[in-house]
């Protein structure tokens, strides 16, 4: 099993880090949140030049057909810089789904995704009731069961089944688990806009347009798992960024006559953050090797917890300044809060881990 990065992978990550460091991501984020995707798309084009958008695209459609581990390296850096844009969708889930569908759909969009000409987004209730940045993406897909796109079950657990009122999210009523219907894939028709805690995540409901497949449950499930893996990597990168920021701030900020990083309360809180990140990482790499639902879920839970702990500690270390929109920390805080809820919540993924351990049916099969 390969649980650490090769030198080549480490270099790839460092290259992306330098690329994003040189780009003005904070300015691109402000513009993106305000509806101007131009500076952000420019950064995405540079990432495409570095191969990021081609990683999950098969070679026959102009892609690199890279390993999921390479994908994880790239996605961690996107999270490390809190880049705006539909990252998990463009880099992981949508190319995986199109490649699995193959044929005309793959032919139509995969070359454009690989080259970076188009960004992609996806709605797949219940894990993904909203499609992020559907106003900017060149490819918007909807994966759902036909009966109203409301009952696509991400987990075999009764919990998740009973919980989600569906894409409209209006009632909160308990819904019974419906009889399984085949999962379809459509071109998405952009519907109502919804505001996210992360202002760079411009959420939209999607309705079904042109149908691309009428029975693609397996492909959709694997695509969502790849997206969840990418999301875990994104969370880990964001957590790492917040730890780095908090450590730097704690060295500089003076109160009571000394840098606050000398206070044991600060030291110990940040040490716990370091432990959380350190032990989430191997689960992420292991999931990239196996791609089993259980391992993907374990990675998502662990990375979300580690990122959440990092967010809480970093905010507490910064105090009020961390709570401002102006200071950079908020870009990660809000991203983490949003991604904890997307691509399956920790409740969903914990339930899936237990379901696989206690030999209940595999989801999406």
């Amino acid at each position, binding site marked *: 099993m390969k649980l650490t990065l090769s030198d080549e992978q480490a270099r790839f990550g460092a290259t992306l880090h330098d690329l994003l460091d040189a780009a003005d991501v904070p300015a691109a984020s402000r513009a993106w949140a305000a509806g101007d995707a131009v500076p952000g798309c420019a950064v995405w084009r540079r990432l495409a030049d570095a191969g990021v958008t081609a990683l999950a695209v098969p070679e026959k459609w102009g892609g690199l057909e890279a390993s999921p581990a390479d994908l994880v390296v790239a996605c961690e850096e996107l999270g490390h810089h809190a880049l705006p844009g539909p990252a998990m969708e463009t880099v992981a889930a949508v190319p995986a789904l199109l490649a699995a569908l193959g044929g005309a759909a793959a032919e139509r969009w995969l070359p454009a995704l690989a080259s970076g000409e188009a960004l992609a987004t996806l709605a797949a209730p219940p894990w993904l009731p909203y499609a992020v940045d559907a106003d900017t993406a060149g490819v918007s897909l909807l994966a759902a069961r036909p009966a109203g796109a409301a009952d696509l079950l991400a987990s075999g657990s009764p919990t998740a089944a009973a919980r989600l009122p569906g894409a409209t999210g209006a009632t909160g009523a308990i819904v019974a688990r419906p009889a399984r219907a085949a999962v379809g894939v459509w071109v998405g028709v952009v519907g109502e806009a919804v505001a996210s805690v992360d202002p760079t995540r411009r959420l939209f409901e999607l309705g079904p347009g042109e149908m691309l497949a009428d029975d693609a449950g397996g492909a959709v499930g694997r695509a969502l798992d790849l997206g969840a893996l990418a999301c875990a990597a994104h969370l880990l990168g964001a957590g790492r960024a917040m730890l780095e920021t908090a450590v730097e701030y704690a060295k500089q900020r003076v109160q009571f006559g000394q840098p606050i990083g000398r206070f044991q309360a600060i030291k110990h809180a940040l040490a716990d953050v370091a432990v959380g990140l350190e032990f989430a990482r191997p689960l992420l790499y292991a999931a990239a090797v196996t791609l089993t639902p259980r391992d993907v879920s374990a990675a998502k839970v662990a990375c979300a917890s580690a990122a959440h702990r990092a967010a809480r500690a970093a*905010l507490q270390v910064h105090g009020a300044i961390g709570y401002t929109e102006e200071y950079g920390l908020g870009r990660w805080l809000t991203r983490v*809060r949003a991604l904890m809820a997307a691509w399956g919540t*920790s409740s969903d993924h914990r339930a899936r881990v237990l379901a696989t351990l206690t030999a209940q049916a595999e989801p999406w099969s």
Partner: protein
Amino acid sequence: MREWLAANAPAAPLPSVDSAEGDAAHREWERLLTGARLSAVSWPVEYGGRDAPPMHWLVFEEEYHAAGGPVRIGQNGLFLLAPTLFGHGTAEQRDRLLPRMARADDVWAQAWSEPDAGSDLAAIRSRATRTDGGWLLYGQKTWSSRAAYADRAFGLFRTDPDAERHRGLTYLMFDLRAEGVTVRPIRQLGGAPGFAEIFLDGAFVPDADVIGAPGDGWRVAMSTAGHERGLSLRSPGRFLAAAERLVDLWRDSGDSALAGRVADAWIAAQAYKMHGYAALERPPGPHAGSLGKLFWSELDLALHETALDLLGPHAEVRGSSRSGGWLDGYLFALAGPIYAGTNEIQRTIVADRVLGLPR
């Protein structure tokens, strides 16, 4: 009172208090409350209150929040400045300021923190220099909550530049629209300007707007800080109402794996309520405010984090239609362990002064 609230409380949430339209709407609401003599029930009748004993005030708060009453735009004044005026102000100050405060004709901002005096409040450097009939203010305040739309502010200024730390400070009130005052709103997570920087360059404060004796500001302020850390700013009503909503959300969700956290949050809200009632029977110890602040700030986070986990993928959605306003409440709760004395400061106070551990 319950009927009045049921009949008059806004059916839909008002716009954010930290926006121009929200500011106007919340001031309007306060005038309505004042008309029913409900804006400051614990004040003496002469200032528009009802002389309500603390227990009645707690019940008012429970009813207010259970009815979904809006955020109190005047809370800096009502819960922080007013107790200071009752304790240290003059009759003239009370007559002049309190009725306008109750009606939200004057909305008050806090002006405590400075860029280098956050947790370490005694490190204040903004100064007030003596002039004919009053003082001239210089320096910078920050994290001034509500200052973007408020009318007036109160805070500490150094009047004796040679005195160290918490000596030589004076408690002053000033007009945010006065000459020599520049307010720069700070946008916070979520985008609203919940607080502001205040730049002071010679703004005039008449002697009539000094509370207590010049140089005695630390002592005066600590009584306000006690109020901030204590019950008054964080009455149990808000948490009890949130806990009831959380239980409803959980019942509707059917997520049994989160039952334990829901129960714990509800129990903690009850504990905070009972603790408040107990404090009315017997005055709590001098540092009860620190214990309380640690408890309510963590309770508020637990309530909101549990709710967000119950909301599943809708947890990232702003506003109230899809996520019941929990996300917005969460962003507010995140500030709890930071403001009014960080929780790290509070734990040290508890350890040193309640438990008597060596400093």
